[in-house]
């Protein structure tokens, strides 16, 4: 690899990692705002999304530049393609964190629903999945990526459980229906974030091994 391309790839890596940290922080804040009924923190998440969007565009431009100017092959090519795809997932996770923040802003302005909902476990697993998928990316660690694929089943199951609980709560406390629907949405957003973490993990496996395991992850595990 020419020193020139090595520099460009290093620059892309730094930009991508910076975006990773922004997205992780956004998710963390949105979950905290929900837990602590903190409307101000939720607003911060919503306002800061524009920074994530700008960084997403920067990363994409950097990828396109390297493709056009250096025509990378093999591992370099797979890294650029992976960066492009992960970039999309990160931006979507940013948007979903904003969605969670919007729900928590609403919930903070209204009375708490009488049935306690425990988002902690779901949020914790989802955050850990995102962290693991990003660590797998940084350390090109396929084993960690595989762990992310497995953890997704857990989040899916909790999301399904949450649906049943909310359904029951609506029957029991119909006056809270709006807040309850917002809570259900939070659960769905967390579940979608976990799916994006899975996408990131799958792309890491592609980058390291050159195999596309999407749609057949069960065979892979």
């Amino acid at each position, binding site marked *: *690899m020419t020193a020139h391309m090595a520099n460009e790839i290093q620059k892309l890596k730094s930009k991508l990692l910076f975006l990773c940290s922004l997205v992780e922080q956004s998710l963390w804040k949105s979950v905290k705002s929900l837990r602590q009924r903190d409307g101000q923190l939720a607003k911060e998440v919503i306002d800061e999304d524009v920074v994530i969007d700008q960084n997403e565009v920067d990363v994409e431009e950097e990828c396109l530049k390297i493709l056009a100017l250096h025509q*990378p*092959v*093999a*591992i370099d*090519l797979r890294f650029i393609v992976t960066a492009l795809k992960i970039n999309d997932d990160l931006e979507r996770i940013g948007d979903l964190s904003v969605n969670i923040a919007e729900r928590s802003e609403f919930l903070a302005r209204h009375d708490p629903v009488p049935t306690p909902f425990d988002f902690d476990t779901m949020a914790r697993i989802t955050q850990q999945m995102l962290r693991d998928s990003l660590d797998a990316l940084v350390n090109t660690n396929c084993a960690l990526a595989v762990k992310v694929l497995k953890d997704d089943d857990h989040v899916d199951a909790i999301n399904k459980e949450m649906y049943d609980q909310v359904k029951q709560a609506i029957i029991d406390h119909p006056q809270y229906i709006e807040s309850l629907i917002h809570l259900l949405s939070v659960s769905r957003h967390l579940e979608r974030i976990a799916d994006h973490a899975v996408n990131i993990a799958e792309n890491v496996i592609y980058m390291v091994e*050159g*195999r596309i395991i999407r749609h057949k992850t069960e065979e892979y595990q």
Partner: protein
Amino acid sequence: MEPKSAVPLKKTGAGNAVRPQVAADSAAYVDSGKPAVISAERFSFFYGSKCGVNNVSMDIRTGSVTAIIGPSGCGKSTFLRSINRMNDLIPNTRTEGTLAVNGCDVYDKRTNLINLRQQVGMVFQKPNPFAKTIFENIVYGPRLQGVRSKRRLSEMVEKCLRDSAMWDEVKDDLHKSALALSGGQQQRLCIARTLATKPNVLLMDEPCSALDPIATARIEDLIAQLKGTYTIVIVTHNMQQAARVSDYTAFFCLGELIEYDRTDKLFTNPAKKATEDYITGRFG
């Protein structure tokens, strides 16, 4: 961890030699399943005591374009030139193993060199037209083969020039000197001249290295047109060119065949570390 789709390795006859074969699932390729037109079996080539090509086993399929890449001095040109015995004039050389074209051993004593070189045409790095007219350049080979009819020769000239995509450019100048053509046109004329003896294999030794990007693009287009009708083996230092024009790529290093696979596979996910290091420019 080695990917599942790595090149299957098959033991050949005696000894430890392994034959890298292209993956059998290449249904996207027109030549899939076709027999090998060039077949090397533990082939080695020595310059005195120095080994230029070491124990290479590979099959090149009919109608395909195969690129040979590798660092300077890796034996890729030696291997290419071995296919039609261009190295014969170098003193003190010898070969081991077998190298067959259309099922006939190239280095067999009974091999008729003229027939071999009619079947296996060659195009070199620098265009080398004869100092004759365009027409005479093309009919030179057929004349030696005994074609005398003027009408047949004219038809051949038109067909070869059409096949090499330069008929429209030179049809009114057939009796002008070939040396008046541009470098790119001269190279295409050399290809046309090669086609005139009706070969089924075309060997190209860095055919574009002396040409500008536009002339290079025309030669590459021409390779795409000739593919299927002819089996083309091209040696190139330009990796992007190898990736663009070939169906299969062979990577040579220090005289050995390191990896031989479908081009799309080799350039996205090579099975060997040495290949990856070379094509990504980490060494070489």
